[in-house]
C-alpha cells in the first residue's frame, strides 16, 4: 500500500476530479481542488522517497531510482498546476476534464518509471500518452481552430507510430530471450548485442522514448504541438514526460551496458543532429513556445550525450541536467502563462517592454533563459559542463567541440528574447500584475536554478546513488 501511495493518490485525485466534473462545480472550486490534490500528490511522492520493494509479480519495482523521478514529477506537476491555474485558454466547462487527463497522464508516467517489465512499460506509456492525446486539442481558441486540431492529430499519429516501433522492438526482445522482464533481459541482451537483430530491437525500443524526449528524428511533433496546445498543456508536455523518458532511457541503456559500437555511433549521430537541428531551427522562430520546443530538441541531444558515455557519472549528470532543464523550462513557461492574459500564444515580439510591464517576470525570464543558454552560475551551465567532461573522458573530442559550438549558437536566440523583454515598447501596454503566489513560485524557481548551479555536489551525489540502485 505504502509502496504504491503516489500512484494511488493520483488515482484518487483523478476520481475526485471525476466526481467534481459530474457535480458541475464552479471553475474556481475545481482549480482549488486540483491544486490541493497536486500538493497531496507531491506530499505522497515525498513520503515514498525511501520506499523499496516489488509489486505485481515483480513487474513493478519501487526503488530509489523510481522514487526520485516520482518526486521530480510530483514537484513539476504541482508547479504546473500552480502557475497554470488560470487555464485561460480552456472553456470553463472542461476544466475538470483537463485536470483528470493531467492526473492520469502523470499516473502513467509514474508507473512508467517503476515498470521493469516490457508490457508494463508499454501499458504505462500508453496510459500517459492517451491522456495527453486528449489534452492537446483541448483549447478554446475560436479564431484558430485548426492549430490545436493539427497539433492533436500530429501528436497522436507520431505517438502511435513510435509506440508501434517500440512494441515491435519488444517483440524481438521476447523472441530473442523468451522473456519480457528487464532483470532477465539484462543478463541476456549484452551478449546478444553483437547480433544485428538485437541492435535493431534496441533501437526500435529506444524510438518510443526518443519520441517522448523529442530526439531527432522523432521530434517532428514538437513545434506544432508546442504551438497548438494551450500554454498550460505545453508547460506540462515540455517538462514532466521528459523526466519519464530519461528515466526509461536510463533503464534501457544501463541494461545494454557498454552498448556496442553500432549502438554508440547511432546515439552519437542522434545527439549531434538533435543539437544542430534544434538550435538552428530555434533561431528563426517567432512564437516563443515553438522556440522553446526547438530548444528542447537541442537539450534532449545534450542529455543523450550524457547518456551515451555509458558510465554511472554520466548517467548521474544526465539526471542532473534533465532535472535542471525542467526547472528552467518551468520558469520560462511561468512567464509565458502570466503574459498571455487570455491564454493566447505569445510571440517573441509580444514580450517587448516586459521589463516595464513587470520587472519581476522579466527577471524570471532572464534567469530562465540564461540558464537554458548555459551561462554560469546557473544550473544549465553546470549540467552542460558536467556532460562535456564526461564526453571528453570518453575521448569524444569532436563531439564536445560540436556541442560547445551549439552552445554558442543557442545563446543567440535565447538572448534575442531577453533583448526584446528589456527593450522599451513603442506603445506602452498595461502593467502585468503578478499575484503573490506567482511571485513566490518564481522566486522559488530562481533560487533552485541558482542553488543547483552553485551547489551541485549534493544533487550529483544523490543522483549517483539513485542510478546505483538500478545498476
Amino acid at each position, binding site marked *: 500500500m505504502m509502496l504504491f501511495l503516489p500512484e494511488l493518490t493520483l488515482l484518487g485525485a483523478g476520481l475526485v476530479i471525476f466526481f467534481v466534473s459530474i457535480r458541475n462545480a464552479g471553475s474556481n472550486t475545481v482549480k482549488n481542488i486540483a491544486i490541493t490534490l497536486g500538493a497531496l500528490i507531491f506530499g505522497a511522492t515525498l513520503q515514498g522517497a525511501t520506499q523499496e520493494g516489488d509489486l505485481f509479480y515483480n513487474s513493478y519495482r519501487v526503488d530509489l531510482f523510481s522514487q526520485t523521478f516520482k518526486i521530480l514529477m510530483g514537484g513539476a506537476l504541482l508547479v504546473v498546476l500552480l502557475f497554470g491555474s488560470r487555464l485561460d485558454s480552456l472553456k470553463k466547462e472542461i476544466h475538470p476534464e483537463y485536470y483528470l487527463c493531467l492526473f492520469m497522464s502523470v499516473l502513467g508516467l509514474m508507473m512508467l518509471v517503476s515498470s521493469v517489465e516490457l508490457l508494463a512499460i508499454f501499458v504505462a506509456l500508453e496510459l500517459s500518452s492517451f491522456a495527453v492525446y486528449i489534452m492537446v486539442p483541448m483549447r478554446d481558441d475560436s479564431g484558430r481552430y485548426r492549430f490545436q486540431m493539427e497539433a492533436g492529430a500530429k501528436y497522436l499519429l507520431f505517438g502511435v507510430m513510435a509506440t508501434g516501433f517500440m512494441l515491435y522492438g519488444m517483440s524481438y526482445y521476447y523472441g530473442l530471450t523468451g522473456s519480457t522482464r528487464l532483470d532477465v533481459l539484462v543478463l541476456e541482451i549484452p551478449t546478444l548485442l553483437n547480433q544485428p537483430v538485437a541492435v535493431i530491437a534496441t533501437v526500435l525500443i529506444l524510438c518510443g522514448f526518443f519520441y517522448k524526449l523529442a530526439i531527432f528524428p522523432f521530434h517532428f511533433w514538437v513545434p506544432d504541438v508546442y504551438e497548438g496546445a494551450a500554454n498550460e498543456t505545453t508547460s506540462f508536455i515540455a517538462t514532466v514526460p521528459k523526466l519519464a523518458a530519461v528515466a526509461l532511457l536510463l533503464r534501457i541503456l544501463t541494461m545494454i551496458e557498454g552498448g556496442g559500437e553500432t549502438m554508440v555511433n547511432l546515439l552519437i549521430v542522434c545527439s549531434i543532429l538533435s543539437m544542430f537541428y534544434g538550435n538552428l531551427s530555434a533561431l528563426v522562430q517567432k512564437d516563443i513556445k515553438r522556440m522553446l520546443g526547438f530548444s528542447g530538441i537541442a537539450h534532449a541531444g545534450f542529455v543523450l550525450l550524457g547518456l551515451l558515455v555509458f558510465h554511472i557519472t554520466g548517467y548521474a549528470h544526465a539526471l542532473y541536467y534533465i532535472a535542471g532543464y525542467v526547472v528552467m523550462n518551468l520558469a520560462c513557461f511561468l512567464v509565458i502563462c502570466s503574459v498571455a492574459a487570455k491564454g493566447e500564444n505569445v510571440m517573441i515580439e509580444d514580450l517587448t517592454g516586459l521589463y516595464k510591464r513587470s520587472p519581476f517576470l522579466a527577471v524570471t525570464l532572464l534567469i530562465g533563459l540564461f540558464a537554458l543558454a548555459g551561462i554560469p552560475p546557473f544550473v544549465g551551465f553546470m549540467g552542460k559542463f558536467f556532460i562535456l567532461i564526461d564526453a571528453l573522458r570518453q575521448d569524444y573530442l569532436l563531439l564536445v567541440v560540436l556541442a560547445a559550438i551549439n552552445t554558442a549558437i543557442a545563446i543567440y536566440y535565447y538572448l534575442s528574447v531577453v533583448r526584446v523583454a528589456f527593450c522599451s515598447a513603442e506603445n506602452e501596454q498595461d502593467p502585468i500584475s503578478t499575484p503573490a503566489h506567482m511571485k513566490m513560485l518564481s522566486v522559488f524557481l530562481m533560487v533552485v536554478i541558482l542553488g543547483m548551479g552553485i551547489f551541485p*555536489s549534493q544533487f550529483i551525489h544523490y543522483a549517483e546513488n539513485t542510478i546505483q540502485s538500478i545498476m
Partner: protein
Amino acid sequence: MDQLLTYPEFPHLLSILIFLPLAGVVPLLFVNNDLFSRNWTLVVTSIAALLSIGLITGFDTSTTRFQFAESHSWISSLNIHYQVGLDGISILLFLLTSFIMPFCVLASWSYIKTRIRTFMICLLVMETSMLGVFAALDFVLFYILWEAMLIPMYLLIGIWGGPRKIYASIKFFLYTLSGSVLLLVAIIWLYQENGFSFFIPEMMWGNYSFTAQILIFIAFFLAFAIKVPMFPFHTWLPAAHVEAPTAGSVILASVLLKMGTYGFLRFALPITPDAAIYLAQPVLWLSIAGIIYGGFTALAQNDMKKLIAYSSVGHMGFVTLGIFVFNIHGVEGAILQMINHGVTTGALFLCVGMIYERTHSRELLSATGVGKFMPIFVTFLAFFSLSAFGFPGTNGFVGEFMILVGTFQLDTALGKFPYLALAAIPGAILAAAYMLRMLQKVIWGGTNNPDQSWLKDLNIREIVTLAPFLFFVFWIGLDAKTFTNMMHTSVIGLLDQLHSHQQQALTAADLILR
C-alpha cells in the same frame, strides 16, 4: 599545493574581499530606497577598497607563490575546489578593481536616475565576479566568474545605456561569450591531462604535446583576444562603450579589458609556452595593427566616448605587444600599462560622463569651449589626456616606454623583428594627435561655439571622484618602481620558465617547417 601561501594574520582576507560586495546585495533586496541604495553601495565598495590595502601590507614580493591563498572543496565528485590566491601579476589588477568601484558608484550618483537599486545590485555583483576572476586558482571557478559577469554588464548596458543600448549589449554579450566557448573545451581537456585537477598552478608548465598546445592556444586566444579586444576582434567595444552608462564604461575600460590580457599572462603563456612562442609573431603584428588602427580611427571620431573607446584598442595593443615580446621590460611594462590604462581611461570616461550629465551630448562639437566655464574640469581632463598619450612624468609614459624598450630588445629563438618597435611608435604619435585634438576643442572650442555660460564647474563630489585618479597618474609616473617591485619576482619566474621552453618551440617549429 606548495604553490600556495596562506596569510595567517588574516586567513580569510581574500575571500572576504571577494564576497563582501555580494553580501552587500542582501540588504538592497529588502530595502527599496534610492538614497539608501547609493549610500550603502558606496559604503560597501569603500570598505572593500580600504580592506584591500591589507593585501599590500601583507604581500611578500620575494616569492612567486600565490599568497593569501585559500582552498576548500566545492564539487568533490569532480575534484573542483574553491581556490583563490594572488601573485605579483594578479595583485595589482585585484587592487585596481577594488579601488575603481567606489568611484563608479560616485560617478553614477546623479547620472543614474531610474531603478537605482537594481543598478547598484548589478555593480556589486559585478565587483564580486571581477575580483574573483583575478584571484581564482581553480579553472572552473575562474570560468564561472568570467562568464557570470556578463549578466550584470549586459543589464548595465541594456537598461541604463544610451539609445542603441540593446544592440550594444547583445553584441557585447554574444562576442565575448562565443569567444569563450572553446575555452571551456580547452579547460576540460587540461583537466584530463592533469590527473583530473582544475588547479591552475598544476596546469602550468606541464609538458603538453606541441599540437595540443597549438589547439589550446587558439582556444585561449579567441577567448582572450575578444575580451582585450585585439584588432580585428574589437568591434563590440566601441558600441558597448558608447552606449554604456559612465560607470559601465569605466568598468569596461578599467577592468574588463584587463581580463583578456590577464588571461594571456596567467594561462596562455604558462600553459601553452611553446605555442605562445611559436605563434608570437602573428600576435605581435596584430598588436601593431591594433595600435595603428586604434589611433587612426580615434582621430576621426567626433563622439568623445567613441574616441576614447578606439584609443583603448590602441592602448591595449601596446599591452599585448609587451606581453608577447617575452622579456622583462615588455611584460612588466604591459602589466603596468594595464594598470595605467585602467586609471587613465577610467578617469577619461568619468570626465566624458560629467560633460554628458551637463550637456546631454557626447559630441565634441557641442562640448567645444567648455573650458572657459569649467576650469577645474578642464585641468583634470588635460592631465588625463597627457597621461593617455604618454607624456613624460605621467604613468602612460613609463608604461609605453617600458614596452617599447622591451620591443627593441625583442630576441626570441624564432626570430628577431627589428622593425617591430619602429612600427609601434606612430601609435604613440597618433595618440598625441587625437588627444590634443579633443583637448583643443574642449578647451578653446571652434568658431560655432554654442552658449555654454550656464555650465557649472565640477562640484565637490566630482572633484573627489577624479582627484584620486590624478594622484595615481603622477604616483605611477614618478615612482613606478613601487609598482614594478610588486610584480618583479613573479614576472621573472614566468619568464625563466618560458625561456626554458624556447628550445622546445624551436625544435617543434623546425619539424613543422621542414
